[in-house]
């Protein structure tokens, strides 16, 4: 069995998506082929302030060219440092880590719900579903953000053939309001149809998704975030409480959990 390891790779493509969002492509990353939607990589940012790696969901892969992409937003020290990387800079990556989303059944509609910087793993999920033969038209891609500028990579998402349903807090792009309100309207309107929910985004959104899934008895999965010192399951720092009692590690038992599994 090939072992996991920390791998030095290079930032070979760096796109500024505006509004503090960036897309980074790393190559050569020998484990690109093993990355599945939901997996994340743990990125080293050698600096005195930022001692831990930072987790970043895989946003796309090109296994032939041994490339992976991440998309991130500057939030604090860690991501600011990451944003300072120049093209060709060496970057140390540990991964792929965590579990993956399970694909919907053929007869299920996929209700994908991304909030803010939670959309990258869902972009990967949608792409992979389509690549595996799932009809793009059966994918509802809800994407919530504060303002129009926070809905990035729209063209790219549309190009997949999915139904992009943008929602902004201020209505500056797409529907106005909370993305989960839009989802609930959709779910109610299509009551009786088979659907599967997929969500990734801020804590409040995940909680609303979880409630919604349980209320309408819809199956689905949520990808969680937590500060992750190790990312591999040994430090027990990233735990979340489970509904059935006990803790789960977001990094290893997740980051993807079934709706209803975690006490959000």
């Amino acid at each position, binding site marked *: 069995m090939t072992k996991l390891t920390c791998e030095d790779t290079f930032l070979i493509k760096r796109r500024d998506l505006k509004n503090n969002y960036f897309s980074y492509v790393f190559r050569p990353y020998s484990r690109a082929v093993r990355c599945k939607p939901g997996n994340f990589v743990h990125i080293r940012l050698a600096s005195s302030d930022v001692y831990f790696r930072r987790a970043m969901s895989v946003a796309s892969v090109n296994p032939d060219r041994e490339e992976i992409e991440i998309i991130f937003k500057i939030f604090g020290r860690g991501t600011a440092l990451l944003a300072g990387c120049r093209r060709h800079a060496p970057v140390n990556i540990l991964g792929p880590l965590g579990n993956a989303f399970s694909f919907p059944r053929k007869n299920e509609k996929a209700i994908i719900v991304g909030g803010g910087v939670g959309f990258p793993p869902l972009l990967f999920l949608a792409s992979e579903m389509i690549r595996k033969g799932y009809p793009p038209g059966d994918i509802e891609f809800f994407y919530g953000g504060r303002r129009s500028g926070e809905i990035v990579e729209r063209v790219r998402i549309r190009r997949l053939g999915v139904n992009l349903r943008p929602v902004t807090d201020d209505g500056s792009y797409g529907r106005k309001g909370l993305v989960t309100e839009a989802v609930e309207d959709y779910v109610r309107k299509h009551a009786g149809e088979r659907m599967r929910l997929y969500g990734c985004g801020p804590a409040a959104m995940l909680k609303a998704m979880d409630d919604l899934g349980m209320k309408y008895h819809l199956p689905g999965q949520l990808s969680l975030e937590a500060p992750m010192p190790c990312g591999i399951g040994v430090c027990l*720092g990233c735990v979340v409480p489970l509904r059935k009692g006990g803790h789960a590690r977001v990094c290893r038992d997740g980051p993807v959990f079934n709706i209803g599994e975690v006490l959000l």
Partner: protein
Amino acid sequence: MTSGLNVNIAGVEFVNPIMTASGCCGYGEELTDFFPLSRLGALVTKTITIEPRLGHPPPRTAETASGMLNAIGLANVGVDRFISEKIPFLEKQKTRVIVNVGGKTIREYAEVAARLNDYGRVDMIELNLGCPNVSQGGMEFGTDPRMTERTVREVKKVFARPVIAKLTPNVTDITRIALAAEQGGADALSLINSVVGMTVDVDTWRPTLTFNRGGLTGPAIKPIALARVYAVYERCRLPLIGVGGISTYRDVLEFFLCGATAVQVGTALFVEPDAPLRIIKGLADYIKTKKIDHVSEMVGKVRKY
């Protein structure tokens, strides 16, 4: 098995002096994704207590300058599940296994030790005498010489193989605690456990950890650990296992020179899970280049001014 790296502590042979520290490698399962555990000198498990423990609610880790703070709160599966679920896995691993043991009372320490005594797979136990992250038990044991001595003595009565006492640095004079552990019958000492610390999230005005304070670890504390190892080495003849801020083979050399016979790698595993391999290779190369026959030749050899 690179020659010149094997060490013997209290009669137990280790292929090399690099162990993974308690609480930083779980029970070993996850690390097998990175390397066969046989590459390690030893694996030291998370602290095992008599009852399973969930630990403190999250957040229970925080980042600090060149280090981290944690108050996991001794989350562990408890000795029963450790025996039924983890020992079978460990049976298949060709490495030394040191089980770290904790408790709220001396009796609890002894009970866990007694249960483990029946399992030959447990090569040694290490007593966690100074965990800053629990309200009851932990700290008291390692800050009071009498408690230290009694805890070690009671455990020695029920555990037939070697017992390591792991000491806390949060004391005025660690050599007194070390001598008390020796008096109690300890076969070796590990030092240090984490250093009491605290940080505050200035956005929320809340402590960064739900336990309010926690244990500081990582490169930041390496000088503290080295000073403790050296102080104890000067006064106590037990073999010492150095822990605290190790991430390179050069860090390990510092610990050897200050008197450690072996070392444990903790927080560094979070940044680089395969750090032990890099360190072992670095050590092997170093002794080869320097024409040192055996790592033991360096122990305590710092050329004090």
